[in-house]
């Protein structure tokens, strides 16, 4: 595994060049990730600059199960020499999981600010919901608040062609 040179950001500390970063999940599991892969996450990028001591970075919002997959994603996307088509195919397999897991990925990507993962997972959910009826959407997102029948009728009437 090749490692990339450290980034030349202003906040980088040259006195402790790190190659592996340690992360701790909400349920106490520890994971190691290459610095280049960790930099896919803006959150981690900021944290790495601040901390040189080598203690694992705690991520209370991400469970071990999900963090393992996020590490896998970031590592794959930091790999040099992967062509676009293979990466796309790999991504498609990566998100070929059940809905609850995709949502977990989204929340992790949002918390860790990983634009590539967030974009990928949002596209997946958009594709999942595109053809659904409003009722199916409510079930999908567990939405409780709804309209009164009169309000819903008004919305349907405003854009009736969309319901045909």
């Amino acid at each position, binding site marked *: 595994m090749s490692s990339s040179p450290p980034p030349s950001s202003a906040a980088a500390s040259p006195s402790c060049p790190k190659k592996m970063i340690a992360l701790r999940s*909400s*349920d106490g599991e520890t994971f190691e990730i290459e610095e280049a892969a960790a930099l896919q996450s*803006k959150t981690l990028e900021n944290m790495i600059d601040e901390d040189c001591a080598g203690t694992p970075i705690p991520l*209370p*919002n991400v*469970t*071990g*199960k999900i963090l393992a997959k996020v590490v896998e994603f970031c590592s794959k996307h930091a790999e040099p020499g992967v062509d676009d088509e293979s990466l796309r195919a790999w991504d498609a397999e990566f998100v070929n999981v*059940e*809905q*609850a*897991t995709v*949502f*977990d990925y*989204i*929340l992790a990507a*949002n*918390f860790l*600010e990983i634009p590539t993962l*967030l974009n990928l997972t*949002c*596209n997946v*959910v*958009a594709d999942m*919901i*595109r*053809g659904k*009826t*409003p009722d199916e*959407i*409510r079930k*999908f*997102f*567990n*939405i409780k*608040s*709804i*309209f009164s029948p009169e*309000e*819903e009728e008004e*919305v*349907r009437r*405003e*854009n009736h*062609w*969309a*319901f045909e």
Partner: protein
Amino acid sequence: MADKSEKKLRSKEDDEVSGRDGEAVSPELPVGIITDILVRLPVKTLLRFKCVSRPWRSLISDPSFASSFLARSLARQAVTSLVSISDLSQPGPSLCQFFRLDHQTGLCAPVPLPDMPSNTAEISEGIHGFICLDDGGLTCVCNPSTREVAALPLTNPDFPDDLQGEMSSFATLGYDSASKQYKVLKTWILYSPYGGVAAAHKVLTLGTNSWRTVDDCPIKFPWDDCISEEGAIHILTRDSMRGNIVGTLDLASEKFRMLLLPEGVRAVKVELKLFRGHLALLESRRLRDNNTITLYVLDDYRSRAWKELRMVLPRSWKEDIGFPPRSLRISIPRNGSGDILLIPTIIYKQSVAYLFSYNVESKRVKKVQIHGPPFHIFYQYRTLSLECRPFDLVDNILSLNHV
């Protein structure tokens, strides 16, 4: 990025817990992420999803959501055009229908729009997908994406009462990027029987009720053509003293500037286009015989210098189609691939129509047959020919009621 929401700690077992129906329970997504997902969906789906819940309706109707949605539309490469097809052979009001024309497949699918107030309205391409219709009295704005048509408040040119004669009007829609508002420009030209010409111009900000008079407008003749770009509306017209001009309305200041056409180029012989972000004059009269398209491109408004760009299509482009195309309208979609599209102006019943696509770099022409179910709706009028006109198609969810 969306705001980070508080999430309670979950143990490993929680992830494996299933609902009664055997499916795992999905976590709730914060509103910022819902927005990020919804903005990727087509307009029709989003309009349907307005009735999911009050927060969703509010989110989808919000102008800032429409703004993000539009930014994504404009960043995508356009592969379809909006086309109006009219039956002009009938006396009186003509039947005009709209279609989406796919540049790659040639497929023409109907876009049913609410009945326009008048079928004799002049249609002008606005901006951001909006089109503007004017029939002399009433001016309307239409968003083909949401299939909405909104009539603008009525107004008159305020010519002096003793000024009588034949009058024509022109209108188009532009976008003022400074104030983030849409504005409509309307011009009236009155021909007095004694030979004089009078002009009046007004501007309306969409969403408001009153028209403002525009002073010091150099336009005193009918519009030969018009085009909107971000922040300005350009009008191609003639001027009795200076010859042929482009009058540009800066939408922020609502003041006009004027630009002369290149030597020897006449307003009636060219069309206004945007070519790679620059204002350009398109001359296509020698297309059929000499396979030539000429563009005069304005690199920089301040320099006022037009650069001539001549494109010669390969001679074979019009072979194998059985007859020389009588006339073609040239379309340069703003967010297109950069290809120049040639769309037949007249489509004849009983014959095949083609869409041509010319790539400026490779100088190659691709030909695609235009087909689609709806032409038959015109045939009940025993029509022999239909007039076809292309417009930029931009997906835009902004409701004309929330502008």
